[in-house]
């Protein structure tokens, strides 16, 4: 079944999908979907007031969000199965708290993409905002599982407090990637900003180049890490084009942050000498 929700043309303000379990729409009639409550312009509305709803048969179960999707926040929030496709940009907190299923965003996303997610896959063709894969407000852990693949760039505090899972960014990411990271893996194919890994306890940051290395990290030579080949191969298989040089030479390794547990690592192919 394919459920298409298209924003009505008169929508102008933010729409929160936090209360809508998108995969559950497959079990509802069009009338029931219309009656679902949601928050628009900080006011209570019915879903049918804000979206046109179209239900069609299809091979797989999929919810499609289209129209002015920039207004949509919490797309795929808490989803545990199924597939959600956003045909355009998404607002903040897309995929946050999700535990399964697949969220595909064809454009850019706002902040907190996949924050506190515990499973499932998120694929963004454009850029991600700040706090991607990080903790939600008031929580101590970032994402605890799942995969976030970003075709463009990512903002600051990428994977802040991350506990488990994989974030891969095809472009650059801003400052403080992997800050306070507990474990997990973050790959940034191009440049990683300053302050990367600050306060990280365990886990791995991998970067094409890195703006600076914090004093809490110590050089640990060239790393021929078998696990990295494993990840690079997996990413290639999942449509991520890896720089050829990454497979030809080992990266430089730094261990830290020694001001925290010090069991983390930064692997960088180039860094300021």
């Amino acid at each position, binding site marked *: 079944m394919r459920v298409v929700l298209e924003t009505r043309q008169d929508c102008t303000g933010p729409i929160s999908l936090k209360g809508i379990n998108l995969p559950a729409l497959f079990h509802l009639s069009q009338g029931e979907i219309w009656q679902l409550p949601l928050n628009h312009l900080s006011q209570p509305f019915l879903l049918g007031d804000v979206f046109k709803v179209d239900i069609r048969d299809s091979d797989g179960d999929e919810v499609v969000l289209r129209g002015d999707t920039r207004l949509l926040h919490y797309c795929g929030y808490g989803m545990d199965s199924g597939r959600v496709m956003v045909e355009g940009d998404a607002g903040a907190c897309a995929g946050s708290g999700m535990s399964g299923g697949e969220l595909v965003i064809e454009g850019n996303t706002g902040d907190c993409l996949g924050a506190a997610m515990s499973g499932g896959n998120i694929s963004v063709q454009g850029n991600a905002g700040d706090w991607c894969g990080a903790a939600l407000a008031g929580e101590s852990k970032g994402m605890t599982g799942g*995969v976030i693949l970003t075709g463009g760039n990512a903002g600051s505090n990428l994977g802040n407090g991350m506990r488990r*899972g994989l974030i891969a960014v095809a472009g650059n990411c801003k400052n403080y990637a992997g800050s306070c990271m507990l474990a997990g893996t973050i790959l940034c194919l191009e440049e990683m900003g300053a302050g990367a890994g600050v306060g990280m306890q365990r886990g791995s940051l991998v970067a094409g180049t890195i703006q600076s290395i914090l004093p809490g990290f110590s050089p640990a030579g060239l790393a*021929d890490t078998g*696990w990295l080949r494993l*990840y*690079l*191969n*997996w990413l290639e298989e999942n449509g991520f084009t890896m720089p050829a040089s990454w497979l030809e030479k080992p990266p430089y390794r730094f261990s830290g942050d020694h001001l925290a547990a010090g069991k983390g690592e930064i692997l960088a192919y180039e860094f300021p000498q």
Partner: protein
Amino acid sequence: MHINGILIDDTFAEAFPMAYSKLIITADTPALARQAAQAAAGMAISIIGCSCESGLGEALDPAETPDARPGQVLWLYSYSAEKLEEQLFFRIGQAILPSATSACFNGLDSPLTCKPGAKLRYFGDGYQSSKLLEGRRFWRIPVADGEFVLDESFGIGDGVGGGNLLLMGTDRKTALEAAEAAVEAILRVPGAVAPFPGGICRSPSKPKGKYANVPASTNAGYCPTLRSRVETRLTPDAHAVYELVIDGDSLACVSAAMAAAIRAACRPGIIQITAGNYGGKWGKYHIYLHQILRENPA
């Protein structure tokens, strides 16, 4: 039944259920991967002596391995899942871990698994760490040329062991050439292994023997030098016998490998091809030679 004028005995091989695992060993070069696999397969000839039988499978291109490096398939068989886990722990730790540049991955998706990696990680002495990718945990053990990476869990499959053939020849040279050709044919069947050295066994055995402390002893009926002292199984013009033992990931696999081996072995100098059994009392699987030749046409 005759093939190329060679008698194919109307009998059956008696085979047994076995637990098996498929390992993918990778390294920086194909030679290093093969070397590590050979070391891990070392002396895993017969479960009679070491509770494990093994054989090398196909060499893998980088595109076929989890870490995009050259790889080598290794099959390990044992008589129970528990024993197999012991052998995996022992052989990965003793042979693959120390091999230069190696990594070791599970090659078998199966609902039944064991976790040798969860024990082997302790070689890391507290410096080990893990990565979890799509629910699959890999252990990273620091070693002096980088890290040894291995899967935590390995699949265990229901296989078949003890498929066998006995090739009787007019002399040792021709019997051996036929056996070598048969082994080549066996190893072309996906999932089949021939665990003996070069795939060939010159010492067909029988369970127990005259002495109480031996689990198996020479099968005197196939020994040319005992022809005058025992009830011989040899035809008058047979002067050398080689046994081929075959394990596989299914009964169909073992049957296909045996059929291929029979056809490859039907060369000048071979007098008769037969199979070993215990009267059908011990083994769950009875692999009839005539039947598998009919079911697996050339």
